[in-house]
């Protein structure tokens, strides 16, 4: 029996964590995602499933608690917002190097620095290119609705364990703070039996010692480990690309946008269609792996692409690489905590269409 609730995106993440059978959450409050920790505390997650909820003394402590707990093979997560996620980067790099599964949620706010508390999407580079030091990637999921905030928690855990990789849910202040209907999935019991082959759970006589570390002083061994990581990321790029297309079939111009910007572009798409303009929306759901092939395949039929992101233009670089510059691609976005309106986005698209038409004359 589906359970329909009206929830904030942040609350949906927290409820989904309990229902997905998460074993532990370690975090530190920061706007605009404090409701996640607050909800887990108020709901008494520990009483409901035995899930451990701990407010750490800082983001550094939280991510290192995640590192430690994830070594035991349990479902572990944390959440923060931009400045807090920056503080966690060292730990995330270690976790990626040590190949541990975990779920990290970033409800992005305006930056740089302490920035502002209003929504932003300016953490794209940090999220999809690594973030900390070294050659590593995270799987990055970009929810565009409260429903997806809920759905991507179990999906995120599944992917994290499938590839033993940290998964990042890259959200923003809009999706975190807004309320929408959400269809909650049934409670999944916390796992009692799971793959113990690599975990640190106390060595028994019948298995060799497991070691979890990101350190290897032998350069050749470390290179081998890096090859292994890169092969894993290749596999993820082959298997895990997710995206949604809206009115793209006959489109001559498309928006490419994720998260809150995708919702705003959906409205702009509708407004453009009302004016008879052949506009569509391509929404990457995974930002790593980025839907490169899909965008390349589509680009042949297109006159231009408008990348819309609450940033100065980050995803546009991946779009230009994906299309190999064979179609005109531009960026539009307000940033620093300002949200672009549907009309502004539509106007940017109309200007792009005009510039293409003039070019043809």
């Amino acid at each position, binding site marked *: 029996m589906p359970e329909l609730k009206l929830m904030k995106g942040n609350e949906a993440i927290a409820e989904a964590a309990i229902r997905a059978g998460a074993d532990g959450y370690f975090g530190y409050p920061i706007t605009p995602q404090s409701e996640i920790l607050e909800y887990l505390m108020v709901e008494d997650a520990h009483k409901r499933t035995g899930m451990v909820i701990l407010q750490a003394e800082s983001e550094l402590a939280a991510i290192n608690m995640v590192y430690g707990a994830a070594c035991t093979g349990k479902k572990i997560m944390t959440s923060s917002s931009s400045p807090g996620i920056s503080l966690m980067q060292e730990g995330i790099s270690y976790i990626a190097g040590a190949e541990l599964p975990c779920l990290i949620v970033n409800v992005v706010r305006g930056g740089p620095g302490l920035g502002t508390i209003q929504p932003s999407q300016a953490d794209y580079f940090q999220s999809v290119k690594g973030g900390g030091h070294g050659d590593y990637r995270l799987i990055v999921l970009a929810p565009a609705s409260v429903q997806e905030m809920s759905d991507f928690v179990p999906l995120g855990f599944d992917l994290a364990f499938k590839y033993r990789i940290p998964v990042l849910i890259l959200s923003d202040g809009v999706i975190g703070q807004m309320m929408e209907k959400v269809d909650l999935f049934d409670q999944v019991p916390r796992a009692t039996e799971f793959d113990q082959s690599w975990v640190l759970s106390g060595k028994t006589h019948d298995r060799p010692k497991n070691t979890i570390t990101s350190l290897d002083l032998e350069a050749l061994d470390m290179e081998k480990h890096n090859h292994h990581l890169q092969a894993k990321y290749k596999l993820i790029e082959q298997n895990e690309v997710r995206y949604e297309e809206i009115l793209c079939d006959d489109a001559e111009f498309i928006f490419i946008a994720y998260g809150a910007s995708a919702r705003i572009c959906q*409205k702009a798409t509708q407004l453009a269609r009302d004016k008879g303009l052949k506009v569509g929306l391509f929404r990457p759901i995974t930002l790593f792996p980025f839907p490169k092939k899909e965008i390349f395949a589509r680009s042949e039929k297109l006159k231009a692409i408008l990348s819309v992101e609450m940033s100065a233009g980050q995803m546009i670089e991946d779009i230009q690489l994906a299309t190999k510059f064979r179609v005109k691609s531009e960026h539009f976005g307000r940033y620093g905590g300002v949200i672009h309106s549907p009309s*502004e986005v539509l106007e940017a698209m109309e200007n792009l269409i005009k510039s293409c038409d003039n070019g043809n004359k």
Partner: protein
Amino acid sequence: MTEEIIIAGFGGQGVLSMGKILAYSGMMQDMEVSWMPSYGPEMRGGTANVTVILSTDRINSPILNEFDTAIILNQQSLDKFEPLIKPGGILLYDNSGITRFPGRKDIKIYCVEATEEASRMSMVKTFNMIVLGAYLKIQPFVKLENVLKGIAKSLPPRHHHTIPMNNDAIIRGMEIVTQENK
């Protein structure tokens, strides 16, 4: 049918909770709903606003820059949002503290003296429900029974004894709302 609403006023006037009740009410009527607050530092003592969308279809953008209806509870919000109402749209405002009155000719303007009525009824806290009643009278998309269900969903059980009082305030708002330009 899609109704795009902005509710704006001072922090503490019950702007966000009125929006929440409206969203819950729409949900009780099987509508699609979204509720997007301004959550900036302006909330503390300054202006607060929330965008509520009720629709029979899937809602695309929770962020809007023009509205079918604006429910306005202070001067700053009136100045800011009156120009953003769609032609033919609705402006509902409480006239307490308003010195620069709305002047657009291409929208329908309604006034509800909710601040005054709430103190007359000695129920200052139900001020926002008087305004909600006025809105429901003008735009009867959501049935009163669903609004009462919405209030029950929105309020924690320890406050459920206030539902009859809220009901009275909504009815009162329906009675006292007046159209200014016909």
